[in-house]
C-alpha cells in the first residue's frame, strides 16, 4: 500500500486508470454475452452453451457450469473479432472509416474518470468517494464527453459511402441531439436540490450520493422517490442515447441492415459493440448515482450505517470493496433492465422516436424542471 503512494502521481493515476479499465472492459464484454443469455431465457431458449476448451472440460463442476453460462463462447467470439481479417471495403473514405471506431471508444472510456464507483470512510469520519478525477463539473463532463460519441457514428455513417450507413448516421445524430435535451433537463432538478444555498456549489456525482445518505426521512430517501418524473425522463432519454431498443432506429436491422456500422467487420465492429456497452454501463452508473442512491445498499440505509454495524469504518480497503460491490450490483441490475426492456418492447418508428422526444419528453422535462425549481425555491427560502 505505502509503496503505491510513494510512486509519482502520474504513475499512480495511470495505474488507477488501468485498474478501472481492467474492470470495466471485461464487464462490457460479459454484458454482450449476458445480452444473448437474457434474450435466450426470455425466449424460452437455453442460449449459447456449447463452447468449452478441453482443459476446462476436465474440471468437474466449474467447467460445465461455465460452459452452460456461455463464458467460453464470449472468449471465442472475442478472439474471433481479434483474428478475423480486418478488411476495409474499397468504396469507403479510409481515414475516417478507420478512425470512427476509435472515436467511439474514446468518449466511452473517458467518461469513466468522473464517475465515482464506491466510497470509504477516512479516519476523520468523512465519506470519501472512490473516483479517478473528482471534478466539480462532474455531470457536465459526463454529458459533454459522452455527446462526442455522436461524431463516431456520423463519421462511420458518412465515410462508409453506403446509403444504409448514411441513413443510420443521420438518424443517430438527430436522435442523440433530440434526447440529450431531455436528458440534461431531467438532471437539473437534482442539482438544484443538492446545491442548497450556503453550501459549496458542485455538479460532482459524489455529492449526489452524499445527499442521498443523510439521516432522516427526506435525507435518506433516494432521488427516485423525491423526483420520479426526473428519473423517468432520464431513463427514457438514456435508452435513446445509448441506442437501445425501443429506440434503436439507428441500427434498425429491419430497414437499415445494420445502421452506421453496416460496412464494418471484425475488430472495428467489435469496438463499436464494446463502446455501446460501455455507454450503457456509464449511463446506468450515472442513473444509479443520481437516482438510486449510488453505493448505499438500501433507501434510508446509508453505507456509513452498514460500516457501523459491521465495524468496517476503520478498514478503508474492505469498506471500499463492499461499496464498489453494492454499486456494481446496482449497475448490473440496470443493465439487466436495459436487456429486459430490449427483449420486451418492439422498436419505435423513426417518426415516433422524434415525436416522443420533442413533443412528449421535452415538454415533460421542462414542466418538471419548472415545478421543481419553484418548489425548491419555496422550500429553501
Amino acid at each position, binding site marked *: 500500500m505505502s509503496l503505491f503512494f510513494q510512486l509519482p502521481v502520474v504513475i499512480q493515476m495511470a495505474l488507477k486508470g488501468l485498474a478501472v479499465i481492467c474492470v470495466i472492459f471485461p464487464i462490457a464484454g460479459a454484458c454482450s454475452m449476458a445480452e444473448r443469455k437474457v434474450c435466450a431465457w426470455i425466449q424460452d431458449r437455453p442460449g449459447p452453451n456449447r463452447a468449452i476448451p478441453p482443459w476446462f472440460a476436465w474440471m468437474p463442476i466449474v467447467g460445465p457450469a461455465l460452459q452452460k453460462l456461455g463464458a467460453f463462447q464470449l472468449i471465442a467470439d472475442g478472439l474471433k473479432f481479434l483474428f478475423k481479417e480486418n478488411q476495409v471495403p474499397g468504396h469507403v473514405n479510409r481515414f475516417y472509416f478507420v478512425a470512427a471506431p476509435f472515436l467511439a471508444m474514446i468518449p466511452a472510456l473517458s467518461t469513466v474518470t468522473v464517475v465515482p464507483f464506491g466510497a470509504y470512510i477516512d479516519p476523520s469520519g468523512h465519506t470519501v468517494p472512490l473516483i479517478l478525477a473528482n471534478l466539480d463539473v462532474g455531470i457536465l463532463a459526463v454529458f459533454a464527453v459522452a455527446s462526442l460519441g455522436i461524431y463516431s457514428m456520423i463519421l462511420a455513417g458518412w465515410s462508409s459511402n453506403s446509403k444504409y450507413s448514411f441513413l443510420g448516421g443521420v438518424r443517430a445524430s438527430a436522435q442523440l441531439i433530440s434526447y440529450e435535451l431531455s436528458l440534461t433537463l431531467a438532471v437539473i432538478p437534482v442539482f438544484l436540490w443538492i446545491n442548497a444555498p450556503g453550501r459549496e456549489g458542485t455538479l460532482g456525482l459524489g455529492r449526489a450520493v452524499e445527499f442521498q445518505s443523510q439521516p432522516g426521512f427526506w435525507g435518506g430517501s433516494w432521488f427516485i422517490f423525491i423526483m420520479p418524473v426526473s428519473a423517468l425522463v432520464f431513463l427514457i432519454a438514456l435508452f435513446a442515447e445509448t441506442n437501445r431498443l425501443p429506440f434503436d432506429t439507428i441500427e434498425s436491422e429491419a430497414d437499415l441492415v445494420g445502421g452506421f456500422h453496416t460496412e464494418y467487420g471484425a475488430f472495428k465492429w467489435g469496438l463499436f459493440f464494446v463502446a455501446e456497452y460501455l455507454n450503457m454501463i456509464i449511463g446506468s452508473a450515472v442513473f444509479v448515482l443520481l437516482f438510486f442512491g449510488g453505493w448505499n445498499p438500501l433507501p434510508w440505509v446509508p453505507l456509513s450505517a452498514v460500516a457501523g454495524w459491521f465495524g468496517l469504518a476503520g478498514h478503508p480497503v474492505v469498506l471500499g470493496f463492499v461499496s464498489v460491490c453494492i454499486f456494481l450490483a446496482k449497475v448490473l441490475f440496470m443493465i439487466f433492465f436495459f436487456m429486459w426492456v430490449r427483449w*420486451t418492447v418492439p422498436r419505435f418508428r423513426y417518426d415516433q422516436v422524434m415525436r416522443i422526444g420533442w413533443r412528449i419528453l421535452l415538454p415533460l422535462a421542462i414542466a418538471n424542471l419548472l415545478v421543481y425549481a419553484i418548489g425548491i425555491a419555496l422550500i429553501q427560502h
Partner: protein
Amino acid sequence: MAVKILRQKPLSLAEKVYLPQVVAGMRITLKHMFARAQTLQYPEQRPEIPPGYRGVPTLVKDPNGREKCVSCQLCEFVCPPKAIRITPGSVPEGSGRDHVEKAPKAFDIDMLRCIYCGLCQEVCPEEAIFLQNQFSMSGYSRSEMVNDKGRLYEAGGTLPDRHFKWDKKRAAEEAHSPHA
C-alpha cells in the same frame, strides 16, 4: 362480396401512455425468463419422427431376408430429378429365390439430386423402396452422397410384410402349375 368494416377501438388512456403496456409486457417476459427452455438439444436429443415421415429413401428386405426389389425400374422412370439409377441383373441360380424374376445388380440413389418427394415409394409395385426416418444426410464428397445398393439395404433393414407375394407364387407353382 360483403364488405365488413372493422372499427378500430380507440386507445384507452393506459394504452396511450404506453408505459403500463410496457410494464405488462415486461411481466410476461419475466415469467418466460424463469420458464423451462423449449429447445431440443439436437445432437444429444433427437426429434420424434411422426409416422409417414419422408426421410432418406432406402431399400428394404422382406421378413425372410430376401431383397424385395425386382429391378422393374419404375422408380427410376418416375423419379422427377432422375436421382435413381438401376442396373438390372438376374437372380443368381441356387440362391433360393430363383423364382423371382430379377434383382438389381446395382442400385444407386444420388442424394444430391433426391428431392424426397416419395414418388419412388408410391410407384413401387413390390413395396421395396421406402422413405424412412433418417432426416440428416451429409458427406464430404459428391461420391459419398450417392447411396449404393449396400448402403440402401443397410439403411432400410427389414420391414414387416403383409403380402409375401413371392412365397405365394412359389407355393402356387409347387402345388400345380397355374398355366398348365
